[in-house]
């Protein structure tokens, strides 16, 4: 009985929640002034190339968990599909922070975040505002490309 309870606690402690956010929160993260390398990946459960590169971000999250590197996976799924995102997250055992951006009209926020971004996903931004570092890429990353970027920017 105790073991079962413990198991449940373990499971729930490990299971991440999907945090539903508005654009303000994303902008706050983008402007955060800590000496941390933020790796923000834009993806969706319906996006094939995004799903292909997700394990590379998960690997980075695990590999640098004791260092000031933070991976945030921002889902572009509609908020109506939150259950789908949660199910996906549990099935894939995603350990990185998963956010869902609850904004229907991307035209209102994309340019505020990154004018160079056309809106195609996957897209990824890396930044460390304390060190005035910023990098944006609109394409599917290969494992070695992501690793090279992290090595270049990590504090």
């Amino acid at each position, binding site marked *: 009985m105790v073991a079962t309870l413990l198991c449940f606690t373990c499971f729930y402690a490990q299971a991440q929640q999907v945090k539903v956010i508005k654009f303000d929160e994303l902008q706050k993260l983008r402007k955060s002034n800590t000496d941390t390398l933020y790796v923000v990946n834009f993806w969706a459960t319906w996006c094939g190339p995004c799903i292909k590169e997700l394990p590379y971000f998960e690997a980075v999250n695990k590999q640098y968990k004791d260092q000031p590197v933070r991976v945030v996976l921002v889902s572009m799924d509609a908020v109506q599909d939150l259950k789908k995102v949660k199910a996906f997250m549990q099935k894939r055992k995603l350990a990185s922070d998963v956010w869902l951006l609850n904004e229907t009209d991307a*035209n209102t926020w994309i340019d505020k975040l990154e004018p160079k971004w056309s809106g195609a996903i996957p897209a990824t931004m890396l930044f460390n505002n304390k060190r005035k570092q910023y990098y944006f890429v609109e394409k599917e990353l290969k494992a070695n490309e992501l690793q090279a970027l992290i090595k270049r920017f990590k504090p």
Partner: protein
Amino acid sequence: MKKTNLLLLCTYCLLLLGCDQGVVTNAEAVISADSLISAVAGSTISDSGYKVGDTATDFKLKNVDGKMVSMADYKDAKGFIVTFTCNTCPYAVAYEDRIIALHNKYAPKGYPVIAINPNDVNESWKDSYLHMQQRAKRKNFPFPYLHDETQEIARAYGATRTPHLYIVQKQQDGKLKVAYIGTIDDNYREPQQVQKKYAEAALDELIANKPVSQATTKAIGCTIKWRES
């Protein structure tokens, strides 16, 4: 004894060689990491491609009925709603009925839809010509659905995602001026919740000979599946 020494020397040499190689490999790894980053940076955003006001190129691409289609074929058109789309992107699929509705509303006003599928078949096999034919038949597309097999047209236009609209207006000299680049509306998920019909607003202004007030818009969409170079 001599033999043992020789053996030791050999082992030592081998070890040195091994270490040496290790260093070289690391150095190479560093170099390739840098070149990787520049490669990534190089392909970040294509500043090429059209901006509003540019002259769009015509094309000659194969339609799902086997015939070649160009914008020049439409003698009476005032312009076109050139739509990069595909079979596979859920975002594009969500907009299919709205693309059909756009055509049905604006083709009689001189602005028909021409849909172009730019996805590479090797990267996305369900975007093959055969699958395109099936999709067009199933949805009963009232407009041509063209196969941009070489991806040359998508690159020339600067399309990055599906769906991605380019509304072009025929000028008096016959040139095709890009009047609008962007998305259809502000809500892909719930068509009945749409507040802003960006493409329709642009078309209405064009038809009324007014300047387009919002000539570029952005939306999330699936990246075009480019051929591996």
